[in-house]
């Protein structure tokens, strides 16, 4: 395996370099959380060079995307960032609906917005909790994970599946939400701030946590922009950019008053933690505003538009319903996508999660390119690690929130 990283990170100019030694970190290591490998060149405990070696979880998702139709591929998309699965589904169907030119119903937009924000909280909770866990703070992790369970319950109530709900469909959702779901979201909105402040009180002024994260892995604004960094990572480095405000999609245009863009200027691991913690409260405000103003009406677009599956009753009891169902299920019928291509981006918890869908006239994407934020962010790692200590590897890894399934796809 070649170890060279041909870039500005040169070894210190010394006639004898044999005091440097190489350490293999991963592919299986508790702090990588999933399967990724780092090759570290060390001078004592100082990292001279860090080379990520990825691909251990590559399973050809994008090739599958060229063989599964627009609704089937959602189950695969789910498994990319499995920490916040619904955010991936929303991003995927957002791109497909843009390609097909479908305008969602207001109710579907609001429900999707609530799910997108729950996913953000979902993701940030794991990221902040696991960052604390890797640095020795077990209690904060447990508080965070307990709240994640609540969100799993909400997903289960809506979709019947806890971990990979596959909840969105072209033109709407798998099914409408019920009062039980709304009650659960309301309870979550009421109870979450307490758990959130518990986590903050455990970490915000924790000497160990601060000393291990402040000034570690500093990302400058110029570098963030040049390295394509988006999301909380970029915002913690001072890039004021949030697609929910800049290019409002779903119901974010209506709910723009409910949230602000959270930014910091330091760009270190601690400010990434602070930005994520603060973003959760703004997400909660969005959920609160959306659930209280949830529009009534149908959740799917009109079945006569032949883009959504008709409901079961009309399939069994009317010939039109049966034909509509048939038209979407038969592989030689399905959706008629334009022979065009489009890039559609959403602001997921980790950053810009986008799909570039190429349509060839059929109901299957000709090319379904994912823009995975974890993949883009992980190339920062060698730059952030330079000159730091070995023990800072876990702090930086935790703050980048690398999800290997999304990294390798």
């Amino acid at each position: 395996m070649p170890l060279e990283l041909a870039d500005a990170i040169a070894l210190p100019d010394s006639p004898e370099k044999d005091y440097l030694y190489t350490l293999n970190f991963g592919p299986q290591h508790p702090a990588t959380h999933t399967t990724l490998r780092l090759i570290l060149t060390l001078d004592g405990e100082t990292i001279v060079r860090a080379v990520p070696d990825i691909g251990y979880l590559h399973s050809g998702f994008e090739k599958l995307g060229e063989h599964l139709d627009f609704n089937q591929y959602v189950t695969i998309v789910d498994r990319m960032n499995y920490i916040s699965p619904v955010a991936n589904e929303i991003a995927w169907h957002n791109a497909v609906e843009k390609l097909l030119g479908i305008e969602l119903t207001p109710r579907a937009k609001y429900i999707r917005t609530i799910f997108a924000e729950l996913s953000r909280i979902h993701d940030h909770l794991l990221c902040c909790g696991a960052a604390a866990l890797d640095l020795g703070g077990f209690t904060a992790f447990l508080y965070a994970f307990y709240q994640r369970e609540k969100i799993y319950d909400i997903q289960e109530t809506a979709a019947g599946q806890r971990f990979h709900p596959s909840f969105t469909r072209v033109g709407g959702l798998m099914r409408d939400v019920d009062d039980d779901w709304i009650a659960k979201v309301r309870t979550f909105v009421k109870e979450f701030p307490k758990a959130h402040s518990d986590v903050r009180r455990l970490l915000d002024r924790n000497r160990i946590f601060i000393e291990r994260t402040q000034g570690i892995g500093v990302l400058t604004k110029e570098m963030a922009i040049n390295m394509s960094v988006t999301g909380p990572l970029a915002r913690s480095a001072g890039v004021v950019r949030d697609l929910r405000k800049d290019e409002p999609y779903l119901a974010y245009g209506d709910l723009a008053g409910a949230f602000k863009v959270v930014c910091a200027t330091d760009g270190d691991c601690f400010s990434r933690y602070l930005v994520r913690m603060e973003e959760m409260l703004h997400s909660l405000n969005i959920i609160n505003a959306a659930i209280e103003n949830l529009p009534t009406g149908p959740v799917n677009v009109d079945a006569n538009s032949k883009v959504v599956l008709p409901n079961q009753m009309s399939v069994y009891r009317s010939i039109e319903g049966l034909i509509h169902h048939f038209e979407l299920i038969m592989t030689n019928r399905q959706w008629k996508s334009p022979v065009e291509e489009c890039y559609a981006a959403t602001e997921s918890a980790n950053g810009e999660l986008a799909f570039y869908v190429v349509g060839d006239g059929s109901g299957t994407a000709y090319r379904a390119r994912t823009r995975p934020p974890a993949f883009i962010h992980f190339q920062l790692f060698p730059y952030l690690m330079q000159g730091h200590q070995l023990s800072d590897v876990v702090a930086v890894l935790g703050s980048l929130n690398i999800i290997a399934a999304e990294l390798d796809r």
Partner: protein
Amino acid sequence: MADTERIAVVRERFDATASLLRGKLGSDVFTTSTFRDNCRLIASSDKVYVILEACKLHGFDMLADMSGADYLHYPDAKDRYGVWYCLVNTSTGERVIVKTYVNDPNPTLPSVYGLWKGCDWMEREVYDMYGIEFKGHPDLRRILLPDEFSSFPLRKDYPMRGKGERHNFNPILRSES
């Protein structure tokens, strides 16, 4: 609809940008096309670097995404591979997609590593999946697939089930790893 208004604004800004770039580079360097809110500059592979460089100077300071596709069986396609660069101006939020095409044999493009360092892994991924070479990339090797892998799996002539690599994979000995 708010969306149609936004698309109108986006296209108006794009027209201004495109005419500005035309003034700088000449009118026959690229063609434009739009779809929904996606605005594209389409150029041949030998001109694409000049356009990207001009875009960077114009203020598109971030390369949001970059990837490619194999248009082997695509309706009315003239060229085999397409590569797109999604650029963002982080201060105005403006987006533009620069698209180019390359062909067999030896599909080659200039690397944009000098303009946006973020292209590093994205170019490696395109090379990994399609075999398009990026001249000037400092470290062009496979990224997701093993180095020993011999084909380019996202090409359309590569079967979904593979060519049996999984069953004929040479074991890696400890001494070689």
